């Protein structure tokens, strides 16, 4: 049941572009995904016919806007397997969702000497908020290392988790492609008495996920990586946690009552949604999820695994030892993020040559500098695959890389 990629590509107008006479080859979906027509259409249609602020007016379009906005929330909640929509608070992105947890849950529940466990493969979004809390509260950060196969090294897991209050871990690395075994990590954290925050920013777009099956406490995701618009993301948390947490930002929408001498908070999840939310973006995100579900996350994942296998084999056949791949060599528990480096050519220079041929890859540290330090490299090039990519895209990448290798070859003379 492989996907009809030509049909899928036709849904993404941007992919029809050409640059320098080359067909656009978009291999940077781990950074942000392209959008299908249905998402743009849903947002346009909403603004043309039903736009109004939400949870405020009693007139018909305000009611309609509120209903559509809350329906989008239900769609996102359903997509990740939440028990109820009330467990899903909209945020600006995954970064804000993690900051919300650090600020609200963290400052209520963590004190000097408490331990938060991270992994060496976290994105800065799941590191810096904890550094900030460490600076403010004196909490201790511990790190689960990676092994030679670019997976978490769990040798000392129990020791690392011992006495910890929180494990904050990504479900899938945005640099290595590694998919972590979340249910196992949650079990280990639980038996150590720690809560678990799962960064699902990379997993949600590419794998079927189920926060209840994970048995996690918090999960964060971001719409723009999963075919939706930028400017909206979400925090999922178990209801009792959300109810016990103090609000994050204060203002309209998040209150029940405000007096001169104080305020009371709204019910969850609105307690965490101060100010006018990203209304049209929520509609767009709902449409993006409808699109993904129309194809099926199992099919999306299967396609990406096949294409990743193809890419890893093709890179190996063409470059062998001359190209280092930073990520698992097998496609078990691995997504379609492929980081690579010619040891003698900087990632930026490779990207520049690829850009000439309209091949879009990311170069840099991918907001994972601690990981780059562990790998002892300043940067990688990263090609990331999604449901609209096919073997032609991978082939174009390889041709571009052969040109980059030639262009920067050090003269043997």
């Amino acid at each position: 049941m492989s996907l009809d990629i030509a049909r899928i590509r036709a849904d993404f107008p941007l992919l029809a572009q050409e640059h320098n006479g080359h067909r656009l080859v978009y291999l940077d979906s781990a950074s942000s995904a392209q959008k299908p027509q249905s998402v743009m259409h849903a947002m346009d249609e909403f603004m043309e016919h039903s736009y109004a602020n939400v949870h405020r007016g009693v007139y018909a379009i305000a009611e309609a806007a509120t209903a559509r906005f809350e329906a989008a929330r239900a769609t996102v909640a359903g997509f990740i397997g939440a028990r109820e929509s009330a467990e899903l608070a909209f945020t600006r992105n995954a970064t804000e969702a993690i900051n919300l947890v650090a600020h609200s849950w963290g400052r209520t529940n963590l004190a000097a000497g408490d331990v938060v466990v991270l992994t060496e493969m976290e994105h800065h979004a799941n590191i810096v908020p904890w550094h900030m809390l460490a600076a403010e509260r004196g909490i201790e950060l511990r790190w689960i290392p990676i092994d030679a196969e670019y997976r978490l090294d769990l040798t000392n897991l129990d020791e690392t988790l011992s006495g910890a209050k929180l494990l904050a871990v990504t479900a899938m690395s945005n640099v290595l492609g590694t998919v972590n075994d979340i249910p196992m990590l949650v079990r280990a954290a639980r038996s150590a008495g720690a809560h678990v925050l799962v960064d699902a920013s990379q997993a949600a777009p590419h794998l079927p996920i189920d926060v209840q099956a994970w048995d996690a406490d918090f999960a964060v995701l971001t719409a723009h990586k999963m075919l939706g618009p930028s400017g909206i993301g979400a925090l999922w948390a178990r209801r009792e946690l959300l109810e016990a947490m103090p609000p994050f930002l204060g203002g309209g929408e998040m209150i029940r009552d405000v007096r001169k001498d104080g305020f009371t908070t709204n019910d969850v999840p609105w307690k965490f949604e101060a100010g006018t939310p990203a209304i049209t973006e929520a509609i767009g995100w709902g449409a993006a999820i409808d699109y993904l579900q129309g194809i099926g996350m199992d099919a999306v994942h299967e396609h990406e695994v096949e294409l990743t296998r193809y890419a890893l084999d093709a890179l190996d056949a063409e470059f062998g030892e001359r190209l280092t791949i930073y990520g698992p060599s097998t496609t078990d528990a691995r997504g379609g993020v492929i980081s690579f480096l010619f040891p003698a050519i900087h990632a930026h220079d490779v990207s520049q040559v690829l850009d000439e041929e309209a091949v879009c890859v990311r170069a840099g540290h991918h907001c994972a500098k601690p990981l780059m330090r562990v790998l002892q490299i300043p940067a990688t090039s990263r090609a990331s695959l999604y449901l609209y990519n096919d073997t032609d895209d991978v082939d174009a990448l390889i041709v571009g890389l052969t040109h980059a290798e030639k262009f920067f070859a050090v003269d043997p003379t």
Partner: protein
Amino acid sequence: MAGLEDLYREIILDHYRAPRNRGELEVPPAHQVEGFNPLCGDEVILYLDVENGMVSDVKIAGQGCSISQASTSMMSAAVKGRSVAEARTITRAFKALMSIHESKIGGDDVDATADDLAGVRLGDLEALQGVVKFPVRIKCATLAWNTLVQGLDEIESSH
């Protein structure tokens, strides 16, 4: 449409493949200064030997893309053996060359007028002008120069 040849002139690739003045100097007497490009992780470490107002020696460590490596190498060749004042003038002229998209770099204004810099000959450095057509790479080209200025400022303020 700017092509790769605009960016990667032969002289740039030459400096990239065979960088001048790689190495370290003993600190002290030399002064060490580091610069980072947070965007791409490029890193330059300069060792500056300044005596009697002269940049008597420069050595370079660190890592980065071809543009930042070549620019660092060319900078070291351009300022070594010059007076601090000359090194600063060359820096201003180079930044002016890069300033089409980045009018203010590293805190000191690049408002040098053409008159001010009229007599400055950049020579090989002009090969880096193609970088301005690739705005994201300008920071790669200016990293070494900003680091140089930082180092010279530190040396002068410590006297």
